[in-house]
């Protein structure tokens, strides 16, 4: 009896060892890939050929990006006829995961999710960041989530103007819940304060739910978040949105004016894009692009996404390359004018 137990345990151990070790082997040595390119071209016809695809997400299991990717991955599996395994490589505010994707083998068996603010790192941390927009080829965009400013439902503040006016009468008393001092939300908030010559007290929270509940619980006056984060409480009627950060009004909040309409010249939105490392065979990129496009048209997928308040916004590979080029240029200009760190 004892012997059987020991054998079973060892077997379990060995299988887990194998599962653990196959990973780093597949994602190392980017240098060798150049030599293997010709072989890769031949292999592209058979891609994916039933071989498992790893999908890297730069945030923890259960985070918004992780849930997005897990949902998409389950539909990509149907289109590609192979398994797509989500790998959480969290840490460093996402930098670890994005760096891992940039350095992974470009044979199409490692894909990953980029979050558009990741391309601010090569600008603000130019000396340490190990990737740029040229390190990836976007396959397609899944989600675009505009910034959103909310206050408690019974608040006397109804617009960014009201916020500024209140701050003028009560200097430093407006508390703004964000998800960090250096996030794009905090930058948007600081830009508003600097342009109107007022002061807001930013209070960083660990996550968007926490920040929004700080407003619901009356601990902070304003929460500066994204549209996708506020829907739960909006349905409850406990908060009201007063501004959105997209260039155009958001489809699900048509009555809420944009930052620009309220005189704040600042776009704030986050895109979640599926990508492969640079140098991946164009045929493989095409296969993945087609699979993603089909998955995102699947009515069942769309329904699931809507139920989960995921703001789908499909853009193909070519347009994403252009969008990231434009964003990069825009951020570099902003950085030159007023560095955000």
């Amino acid at each position, binding site marked *: 009896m004892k012997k059987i137990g020991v054998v079973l345990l060892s077997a379990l151990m060995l299988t887990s060892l194998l599962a653990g070790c196959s990973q780093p082997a597949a994602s190392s040595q980017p240098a060798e890939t150049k030599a293997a390119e010709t072989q890769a071209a031949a292999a592209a016809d058979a891609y994916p050929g039933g071989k498992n695809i790893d999908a890297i997400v730069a945030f923890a*299991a*259960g985070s918004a990006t992780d849930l997005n990717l897990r949902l998409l991955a389950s539909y990509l599996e149907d289109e590609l006829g192979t398994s797509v395994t989500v790998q959480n490589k969290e840490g460093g505010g996402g930098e670890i995961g994005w760096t891992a994707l940039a350095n992974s083998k470009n044979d199409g068996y490692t894909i990953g999710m980029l979050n558009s603010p990741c391309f601010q790192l090569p600008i603000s941390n130019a000396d340490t960041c190990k990737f740029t927009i040229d390190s990836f080829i976007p396959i397609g965009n899944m989600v675009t989530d505009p910034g959103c400013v909310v206050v408690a439902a019974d608040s006397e503040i109804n617009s960014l103007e009201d916020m500024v006016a209140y701050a003028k009468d009560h200097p430093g008393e*407006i508390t703004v819940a964000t998800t960090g001092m250096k996030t794009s939300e905090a930058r948007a908030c600081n830009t508003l304060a600097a342009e109107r010559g007022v002061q807001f007290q930013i209070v*960083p929270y660990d996550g968007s739910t926490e920040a929004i509940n700080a407003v619901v619980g*009356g601990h*902070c006056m304003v929460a500066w978040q994204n549209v996708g984060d506020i829907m739960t409480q909006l*349905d*409850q009627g406990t908060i009201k949105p007063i501004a959105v950060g997209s260039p155009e009004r958001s489809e699900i909040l048509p009555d809420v004016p944009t930052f620009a309409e309220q005189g704040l010249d600042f776009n704030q939105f986050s895109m979640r894009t599926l990508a492969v490392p640079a140098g991946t065979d164009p045929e493989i990129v095409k296969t993945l692009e087609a699979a993603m496009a089909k998955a995102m048209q699947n009515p069942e997928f769309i329904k699931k996404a809507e139920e989960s308040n995921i703001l789908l916004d499909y853009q193909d590979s070519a347009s994403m390359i252009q969008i990231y080029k434009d964003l990069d240029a825009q951020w570099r200009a902003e950085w030159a004018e007023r560095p955000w760190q």
Partner: protein
Amino acid sequence: MFENFLTTLQPVNLMWIAIGSVVGAIIGALPGLTATMGVALFIPLTFSMPASTGLILLASVYAAASFGGNITAILIKTPGTPDSFFMVMDGYPMTEKGQGQKAIAITTVTATIGGLIGAFTLLFLAPPLAKIAIKFGPAQTFLTSMLGITIIIGLSKDVMLKGLLSAALGFIFATVGMDTISGDLRFTGGLLELYEGVPMIPCVIGLFCCTQVFSLAASRKKQIAIPDEAVSGKADFSLKEFMSMLKITLESSIIGTIVGIIPAAGSMVACGLSYSEARRQSKHPEEFGKGEPTGLASVSAANNAVVGGSLVPLLTLGIPGNGTAAVFLGGLIIHGLVPGPDLFTQHANAVYPLLFGLILCQLCIFIIGMYGGKIFSKVTSIPNSVLIPLIAVFTVLGSFAIRRLLFDVFLMLVFGLVGYYAEKSRISMAPFVLAFILGALVEKHFRRALLLVQSGNTGIFTNPISLILIALNIFCLISPFLGDIKAWLKRSKA
């Protein structure tokens, strides 16, 4: 309501409760695989299920994984999850005395009671309790987490200098990484892997599991302990002994439920508070940490009560009380269940089966623990020459699995060496872990509260909830010394 109970009793749901409980318990027992990871791994599996079935499965995994860690913590001193390191303190000494099976029986019974109290609270009191939970702002959360830290004093009472040294090191390590308030990096030495702080799980695996590998190897004993039960043939856990623990178990369950409800406090605070309360009430507090069954009962009950408690703010407000609850929230949303007060009315057909499922899962845990206990406790008679390599492999796997970084494995090894030499010098690492995990929490909430004070919210420390919490803090700080003060007063009178 009855209809929903019948939904839970459908064979398919019962099957998933059983599967979720068994797999959850295994996940919890393996070092490095946490309840958080278990729930995250099961979410994709629930995509194709009806909402009620999917959520029942996730809840079973969550509850069973919180319990699974107890088994390995008690029997081989390798807490599978950071939260179960409290079970090591009294559980492992019991195993060493040959009472492994009894310890498993105690942890099972008390964890089931704790889990049931948490689950029933959730079933009947969730909406009104949610109204209280949202009143907990940064100041109140800070004061609650502080309660967890005051237990360090109690733990270190007899060896104050070494205890405080260990805690001080824990606080120092807690400061590494990105400062969540300012967004600046602190003490990372330019290492990308430390940007979000010293990772908690490799640290805990190193300090406990890896240290255990070294000490077992150095001990030259043939096995950890041959259980007494193997000799006498039955677990020595009488009804009388159970009754003597019942009061503490119930109190700890209530503490666990309440702390679970408070957002961002979590199991660590709940176990710490229950443990110090059990010790304060005990007639022989000096036995705590040396294999005192009551100590084990209190932390087991509190740890499992947290599960039900943490689902209260989650289901009614969408606030996750801890990491696992945050992942669970993702599972709810994927099934189109948006948390909020309306959840209990609009989606009653999914939520009530979930709650009944959570209750039935406690029974599964009971069966696993009571009937499996006999088999599990044999693990301590496995020859060390087999056990040591087994644990060693799992420490490496467990620390690698979280972020898949080799860095974490080396970090785990370093902590293992530190833990081993600390153990040799009789420095307890418990204050270190408490300070390391709660230090970051306390700092964050305190500085957030200060930002609010800065903006003119001066009342947050003087409102009734805060004042009660401050009083509790003072009480917890001095309570370990009450006995000494009384003795001193008596002596000065005489």
